[in-house]
């Protein structure tokens, strides 16, 4: 058999599944994700979208099947820091300000060359709220602080679980803009969403999962 693709996919899943008490959470799925590609994960409530995200992030172990990162079996220490996970829990400390939260994230993960926290917070629509404790921000503003991590931290694969939740129209446009920029720079993203995604950079791929 002759391999026709020269480029190795960034992330590849073969018959991936997850077992909870010996019951599969979702039917085995196969997919490939190349650099510069966006894929939407679709499924009903409880079909295992978040579970899939947590497996890909490395928080849950692979139940069955195989997962490859840049063509090699995925191992935690080989891809940490290259994958950025944004889940339902935003991972923000309520007592700290957006600036302090981002400083910690950058302190642990590093930061993109030439990025500054002040300009990122302004870009994300939180200018003037930099030093306000996160507990005083609205749900949508908290989400924006979490989204600011996408701009600040270096990562090639974004795993966004319901990134549009709690966001207003401008916020949704902002997420789409961030995704377009990320893909244009050669990054890849997996997104779960119930809402309509009006993505301008071509039709995204759809990965359907069934319970």
């Amino acid at each position, binding site marked *: 058999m002759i391999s026709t693709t020269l480029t190795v996919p960034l992330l590849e899943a073969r018959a991936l599944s997850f077992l909870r008490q010996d019951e599969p959470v979702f039917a085995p799925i196969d997919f490939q994700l190349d650099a510069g590609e966006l894929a939407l994960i679709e499924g009903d409530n409880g079909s295992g979208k978040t579970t899939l995200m947590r497996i890909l992030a490395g928080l849950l*172990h692979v139940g069955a099947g195989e997962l490859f990162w840049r063509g090699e079996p995925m191992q935690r220490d080989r891809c940490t820091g290259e994958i950025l*996970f944004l889940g339902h*829990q*935003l991972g923000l400390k309520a007592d700290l300000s957006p600036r302090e939260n981002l400083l910690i*994230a950058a*302190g*642990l993960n*590093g930061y993109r060359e030439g990025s500054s926290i002040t300009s990122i917070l302004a870009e994300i629509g939180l200018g003037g709220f930099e030093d306000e404790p996160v507990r005083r921000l609205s749900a949508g503003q908290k989400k924006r602080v979490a989204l600011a991590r996408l701009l600040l931290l*270096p990562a090639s694969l974004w795993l966004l679980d319901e990134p549009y939740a709690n966001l207003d129209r401008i916020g949704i446009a902002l997420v789409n803009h961030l995704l377009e920029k990320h893909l244009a720079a050669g990054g890849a993203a997996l997104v779960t969403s119930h809402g309509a995604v009006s993505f301008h950079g071509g039709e995204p791929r759809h990965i359907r999962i069934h319970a």
Partner: protein
Amino acid sequence: MTRPGLAAACAAMLRRDLTLAWRRRGDIAMPVLYALIVTMLFPFALGPEDTLLQRIAGGVILVTVLLAMLLALDGMFSSDVEDGSLEQLVLAPQPLALMMGMKILAHWMTTALPLIVIAPLLAAMLHLPAAVIPVLLLALLLATPLLSLLGAVLVALTAGTRRSGMLLALMLLPLCVPAVIFAAGAVAAAQQGLPWIAPVAWLGAALVLAVVLAPLACAAALRIALDA
């Protein structure tokens, strides 16, 4: 893209937890007040008899400090589990065990250190001879980090379960018995003018072992807690 070094990541982690503790200063004062009140009540309950108070002083202070630490132990990881910061920490490209070590250090600095600072005051209230106080402080300096480390492993093990306080207290009790025996033994020996270096050396040995192993156990336990 710039990746932070280990020292920078450790500093960021330590600064985060200390800032958080400072924002909730009232919580730091709680164990200190608890220890003060408990120690103050002993002379009232037992009568102001010098010899009796002197005899029990070392034990009372150690047990009071231990119980006061137990008050704050429960919350070591709970807020991080709830708001998802623990997930972010696990996914960060840093050795999790080292980050846990920093968290435990921050926890010890904010709960045990204030208790050690007021220990001479507690000792004075129970008429412990001034010559014994340095030994008491040394014993506390070795025993309290040992308790923080052992406690952190148990808190990590029970991190996924709700209402884990009861379970935690039951599991911690047998583990802290040796620490209390050696620390109280050192204070008692010093009070009787006997050499006290042996029990202190045992505490030191246990602490060294715990410093190496506890953060690793903590990291493993938290990974398991998240993987469910």
